[in-house]
C-alpha cells in the first residue's frame, strides 16, 4: 500500500481532468490510499456548483462529487486560486457561496501538508 497526493490543475472543459479522476480511481481499486486531491490553478473550476454540461457529456463536477461520496477522499480547493476564477465561500452581501459541498476550502498550506503525508505526489 502506497499513499498518494494528487494535484489537479486542469479545467472542467479539459479532457485531462478525467484522466486525473480515473487515475485516482485506479489507485483506490488497487488498494492504495489517497491522502488528498488538491485542486489548484484552473483545476479549481471543477468545484463550481453550477457547472452544467449536456447530458451526453461527462460533468466533471458530478464525477468528482460521486468519487467523494463513494471513497471519502479529501478534496481540497485552493481558495485564492478559486476566487480569481469566480468561486467564493462567502455569503456576505454581494456574494453567494458556490463551491460544491464535497470540496474542502483550503489554502496552499494544505498542499504542503499533503506533500509531507504522502509517499507519492502526482501532478495531473
Amino acid at each position, binding site marked *: 500500500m502506497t499513499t498518494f497526493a494528487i494535484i489537479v490543475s486542469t*479545467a472542467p*472543459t*479539459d*479532457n485531462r481532468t478525467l484522466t486525473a479522476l480515473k487515475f485516482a480511481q485506479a489507485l483506490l481499486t488497487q488498494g492504495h490510499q489517497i491522502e488528498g486531491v488538491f485542486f489548484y490553478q484552473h483545476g479549481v473550476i471543477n468545484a463550481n456548483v453550477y457547472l452544467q454540461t*449536456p447530458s451526453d*457529456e*461527462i460533468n466533471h463536477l458530478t464525477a468528482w462529487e460521486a468519487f467523494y461520496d463513494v471513497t471519502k477522499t479529501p478534496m481540497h480547493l485552493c481558495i485564492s486560486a478559486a476566487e480569481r476564477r469566480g468561486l467564493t465561500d462567502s455569503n456576505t452581501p454581494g456574494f453567494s457561496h458556490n463551491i460544491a459541498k464535497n470540496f474542502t476550502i483550503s489554502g496552499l498550506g494544505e498542499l504542503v501538508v499533503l506533500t509531507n503525508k504522502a509517499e507519492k505526489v502526482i501532478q495531473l
Partner: protein
Amino acid sequence: MISNNRIAIVNTATTFDDFKAKEALDLALIFASYEMPVALFFMADGVFQTKANQNPEGIGNKDFIATFKALGFYDIDDIYICQEDMVERMIEGELSVDGAEILPRTQFKQTLNNYDLVLTF
C-alpha cells in the same frame, strides 16, 4: 458590412485540446444554419481531428467528430486539410471527414486567403 462574408474556421488544435475543436465546430454549424458560406480548414495539430476511428465517447466526450460525416447535410461543403501537416503527423488512409480536399501548403494558404473572415481555433 463585410461584403460576401465568406467565413473560414481554422482548426489548429487537437481533437481534445481544451474543447477548442468542439467550440469551433459549434460555431461553424451556427454560421451554416444562418445560411452563411462557411468553410473548415485543418492545419497544424488540427489535422489530428481528421483521423478516422477516433472514439471520443471512450474518454467521456460526446462523439462530436461523428458530425464531420454529416457536414454536407449542414451545407458545409468546403473542407480543406493541409497536406504537409498531415504527412508530418503520419495521417493517411480513411478520414473522419467526407469530401475534404487535401491541399499542399501553398494552395491551402491561397484558398484560405479567398475568405473574408478567418477565425482560428
